[in-house]
């Protein structure tokens, strides 16, 4: 499948598509088992909170096939991990922090033997009353962070003078990542105390660093490789580290290769989720629904350790404005500590949770003012100065959102459909339809500015084929496909002459996690630089082979090098470079320019640019059962000059459906003892094919990025997740239609909007 046409800005199959459909694409658990492999199974805590922990492994240690049972006492180096705050014991020390916390690791000749032995390990502790929710945590005064506050203008005065003041409270739910591939790591001891770790991680450098710390090794002794992941979504950004380090610990301890694979139930019980948020707000509006002031207090449930909760809260605060200009404001956020698994990164990283709050305020304002919600939204969008200042003082250059809104309203036929739905609803007693329109503005960059860096290493061989290394990891988002296209574009070679290598810390050091939607922005730019350097070295050689005049440059295209009507193959040029002793490897490096943020002041330019989108959703609700179906969604999304359009469309569709899952069918339920009750797909229901909108119409805005990004493209991984909120807006619209006097009927719909929650809301409307 040689693609000799232009590699960039054109549709292309996923780089591993054939591997995927033949089963040949390898994931960590598929790698050939090295001889002498031991299997590790975790022993986990049987209570949510406890002290005076005692682990009795005498029985298990002697069980069939067991080689070792390791506890925290067996960690030679630092017993703590944690991506920012170093507060997470790799294995429980003397306290238990949540139900399911790893306490010990059993290493045995087979997984079943290890599992059976793990059941025999006795874990005792003195139980303490657990804190299992945000409000409980606030009451107990348990916080991971000090408040982070962003203010502008005199919000009290704005609220006092408002025509309409809304006081609201919003609770957004947890969400399990449910990547299809569960956490897995394979650690192989090497020469001279070195270790090679194959990990399903979004952050190989973090695995390397934490392993070096825990095992008291120099970082250079540890390398971490990632073939690909079967989905990550943020769940393998920080939380793949623990299984990987534990596998490494086992390998170090026994001198044998060790695999630690979590089955679905273990994975769901042990790992953290999307942060549930509680938002309390006061919002002031004028009579036309213009937002005058907004005061928000956010709390998130961080779980037992800090993990990435601080930055997740920051991003939530940065997105409380969504696409709207808020003249006066006070936003404050704080992470609560609970006795639950540590909540972590998940697509959107707090952004969706923040955005939900302002969307709730706007919906309620529309309902109380008797205005269509889309009209209220339209009125509040960012615009020309002075309506182009974010709460934290970054300018929003030329916001496209009002124009996008108008375009979507037109192409999706909003007003015609509003009329048709009102007429249909009037004569239908038990089914009602509703529409919801929600925009998104999403800030692109790691909010911890230093993380915005990436490296690449490109190797060209004498036959003209290429190996491409970069620091990003492939989890399905199409990063390798995009980055390979960038490399092909610069070198002017067909994409299938470029082999994208496993991500490995022995090729690219000190990488950032592949996260924050920034994978192709950062790594693409680094790859472009590396490829450019090689091409520059090849130019003089090619020029002389083609006999070009000085000052005339050859063109690299489609595996050929052209000049003055002649051409030679890229391979010939590469070979000539070798013969003439020209180096054909180069590194590239990229750092995002001009971003900085001061959390003390709540001011700065945390983002390189913003990505935009807007969705219109139509749902039908069956009032007798609370079931619903999404009839149609229209999305217009800004991905700049798309690097690979079909991959971006795939990201938009997938993110949208995942966002729908977050707010409708998915529900993480813990028992009173803190035990996770929804630890498998039988009880935790991610969307299936029938939950997908009957019609999906996705359009790309097709407008170059204003910032100098790779190919003038924009990031796409996270922003469309937010558009799932439009389903809630549409559901509220439909549920409201079950009431008598529509304008008065403010809908109370709990999240996630399961059939039960919808049925409750419908019954409440009907009771009016």
């Amino acid at each position, binding site marked *: 499948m040689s693609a000799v046409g232009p590699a960039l800005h054109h549709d292309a199959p996923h780089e591993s598509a054939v591997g*995927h459909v033949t089963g040949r694409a390898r994931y960590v658990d598929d790698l050939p088992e090295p001889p002498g492999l031991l299997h590790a199974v975790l022993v986990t805590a049987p209570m949510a909170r406890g002290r005076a922990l005692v682990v009795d492994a005498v029985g298990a240690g002697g069980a069939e096939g067991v080689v070792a049972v390791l506890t925290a006492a067996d960690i030679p180096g630092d017993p703590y991990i944690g991506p920012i705050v170093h507060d997470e014991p790799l294995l429980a020390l003397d306290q238990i922090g949540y139900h399911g916390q790893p306490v010990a690791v059993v290493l045995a000749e087979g997984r079943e033997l290890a599992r059976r032995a793990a059941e025999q390990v006795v874990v005792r502790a003195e139980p303490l009353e657990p804190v299992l929710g945000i409000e409980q945590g606030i009451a107990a005064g348990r916080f991971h962070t000090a408040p982070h506050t962003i203010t502008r203008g005199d919000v009290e005065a704005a609220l006092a003078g408002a025509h309409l003041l809304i006081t609201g409270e919003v609770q957004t739910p947890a969400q399990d990542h449910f990547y299809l591939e569960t956490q897995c790591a394979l650690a192989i001891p090497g020469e001279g105390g070195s270790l090679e770790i194959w990990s399903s991680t979004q952050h190989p450098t973090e695995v390397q660093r934490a392993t070096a710390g825990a095992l008291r090794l120099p970082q250079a002794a540890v390398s971490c490789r990632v073939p690909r992941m079967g*989905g990550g979504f943020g769940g393998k950004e920080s939380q793949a580290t623990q299984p990987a380090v534990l596998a490494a610990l086992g390998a170090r301890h026994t001198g044998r290769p060790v695999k630690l694979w979590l089955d679905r139930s273990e994975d769901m019980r042990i790992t953290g989720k999307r942060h549930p948020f509680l938002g309390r707000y006061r919002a002031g509006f004028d009579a036309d629904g213009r937002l005058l002031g907004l005061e928000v207090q956010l709390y998130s449930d961080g779980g037992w350790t800090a993990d990435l909760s601080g930055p997740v809260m920051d991003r939530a605060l940065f997105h409380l404005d969504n696409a709207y200009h808020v003249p006066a404001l006070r936003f404050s956020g704080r992470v609560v500590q609970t006795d639950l698994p540590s909540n972590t990164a998940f697509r959107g990283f707090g952004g969706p949770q923040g955005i939900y709050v302002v969307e709730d305020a706007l919906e309620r304002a529309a309902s109380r003012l008797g205005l269509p919600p889309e009209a209220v939204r339209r009125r509040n969008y960012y615009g020309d100065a002075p309506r182009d200042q974010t709460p934290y003082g970054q300018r929003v250059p030329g916001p496209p959102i009002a124009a996008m809104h108008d375009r979507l309203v037109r192409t999706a036929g909003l007003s015609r459909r509003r009329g048709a739905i009102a007429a249909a609803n009037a004569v239908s007693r038990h089914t009602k339809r509703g529409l919801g329109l929600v925009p998104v503005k999403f800030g692109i960059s790691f909010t911890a500015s230093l993380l915005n860096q990436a490296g690449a290493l490109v190797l060209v061989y004498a036959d003209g084929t290429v190996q491409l290394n970069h620091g990003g990891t492939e989890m399905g988002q199409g990063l390798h496909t995009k980055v390979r296209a960038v490399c092909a574009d610069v070198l002017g070679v067909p994409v299938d002459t470029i082999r994208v290598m496993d991500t490995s810390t022995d090729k690219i050091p000190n990488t950032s996690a592949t996260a924050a939607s920034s994978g192709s922005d950062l790594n693409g730019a680094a790859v472009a630089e590396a490829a450019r350097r090689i091409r520059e070295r090849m130019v003089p050689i090619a020029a002389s082979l083609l006999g070009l005049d000085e000052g005339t440059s050859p063109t690299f295209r489609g595996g050929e090098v052209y000049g003055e009507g002649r051409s030679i193959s890229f391979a010939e040029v590469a070979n000539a470079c070798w013969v003439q002793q020209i180096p054909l490897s180069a590194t590239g490096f990229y750092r995002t320019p001009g971003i900085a943020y001061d959390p003390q002041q709540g001011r700065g330019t945390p983002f390189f640019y913003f990505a935009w989108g807007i969705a219109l959703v139509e749902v039908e609700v069956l009032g007798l059962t609370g079931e619903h179906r999404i009839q149609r969604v229209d999305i217009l999304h800004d991905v700049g000059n798309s690097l690979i359009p079909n991959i971006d469309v795939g990201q938009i569709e997938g993110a949208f459906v995942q966002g729908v899952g977050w707010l409708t069918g998915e529900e993480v339920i813990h028992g009173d003892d803190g035990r996770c009750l929804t630890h498998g797909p039988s009880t935790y229901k991610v969307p299936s094919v029938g939950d997908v909108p009957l019609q999906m119409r996705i359009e790309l805005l097709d407008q170059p990025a204003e910032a100098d990004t790779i190919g003038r493209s924009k990031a796409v991984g996270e922003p469309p997740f937010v558009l799932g909120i439009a389903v809630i807006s549409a559901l509220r619209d439909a549920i409201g239609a079950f009431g008598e006097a529509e304008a008065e009927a403010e809908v109370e719909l709990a999240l996630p909007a399961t059939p039960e929650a919808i049925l409750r809301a419908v019954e409440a409307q009907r009771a009016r």
Partner: protein
Amino acid sequence: MRSSPSAEPSTILRFVLNGVALQESEARPTTTLLQWLRRRRHTGTKEGCAEGDCGACTVAILDPGSGRWRAINSCLVLLPMIDGCQVVTVEGLASRNGLHPAQRAMVQAQGSQCGYCTPGFVMSLFEACYRSDLDQPWKLDDQICGNLCRCTGYRPIRDALASVAGQRPDDRFRAASAPGTSGAGLRYEAGGQRFDAPTTLEGALALLRSPTVRIVAGATDLGLEITQRHAHPPHLLSLDRIAELRGVAFDGDELVLGATTALSELEDATEDTLPILHRMLRYFGSRQIKHRGTLGGNLCNASPIGDLAPVLLALDADAVLQGPQGPRTVPLSSFFVGYRTTALEPGELLAQIRLRPPPDSARLGAYKVSRRRELDISAVSAAVQIRLDDQGQVTLARLALGGVGATPLRATAAEAALLGRPWSEESVQQAAHALDQQLTPLSDPRGSSWFRHTLARNLLLGFYEETRLQPFTPLSGRHTGTLILSPGDPR
């Protein structure tokens, strides 16, 4: 094409994997096919849950009965259950000529992102290639509702499916036919466990005398005990090869449903003869589950949320039990004696369900409400049968429910409230009130007591609405919910 009952049972497992004939005599009988495959480096097939709910482990087997390829969950199939079968995994599809159409379609439609769900989807698409009955959009959904994808949002996968469904490529898979097993039955022992698959009822009853023996049919329920609760039953007895326990046929005016009939077979067989059961099966499990799960397994696990029981209760079905003393018949309403317990005595098995299909004039409804429409366990399931006389008075009322008590049950108070009354909203409201009084549902993660109460009465009201709106209840299109009160989407 299994050979005659008289031959000696085989003690070795034989099956054909991707065209290669294999034997196995060491794996424990409770080894799942998925474990076996992955241990032998057939790692194309993935494990996403080991509970039948994600489809990453999907493989296809050639069903000896129908000669058709069936997508199944390899995580719930025990190795001895595929003895004598042809198995195809994702690694076995491509040939020297290139990718199989199911694979090509997935590549072309951009049906994979992370790729972890992909082998499973490919195998569901593979089955679809050779099906000729995927003629409606909802059937396409049904074909892949047993496969979860967390990346794509399904649209491209559904497109890929639509492009290959019913294509029947002229290839070695179409030409395939089942190999014969080595012997009549199977008597397999390994690792201290035993698995018997006799070919006669007498053989099964003889084995059932042992107190340690456990019946296994499709293992979609029992398999969970093995993969999730790590049980290792010492002795399993499969009823799979006993021809007389399987199939759907009329005996006079009675419809006889064999206990080991696979749910997908039942679904096909009842489309015309018993549409009410067919309608419930539409929202039952997934394609993969229905290929393995059986009618008998669904009733004998006596789960309060088993979906077929309400339908069969509403049809006044009888259960025929076979035991050492010969057959006996009990009304299904006395078959469920308590939470997860049945009227089966030790040594007995369920052989058949018998019922008289209702007259065309009877109005019927079957409903299931769960958190997710596809592949989910009911919060409440319900089935209703109403017959009216010429004056529109109710002459027979049956309302059966799952999810509202310790067993599937008949709502006798509501039935009584309807009997002899006109079929009107007022009568139905009164029946709903009576229903409220009778039910004592529990709260659990699938739904609160309030939810279940409200659903039970609303389903009855909704059934009434269905009878009012439509002369009969069609089953087509992609509807919003279990009650068909709006046109639905034909796409």
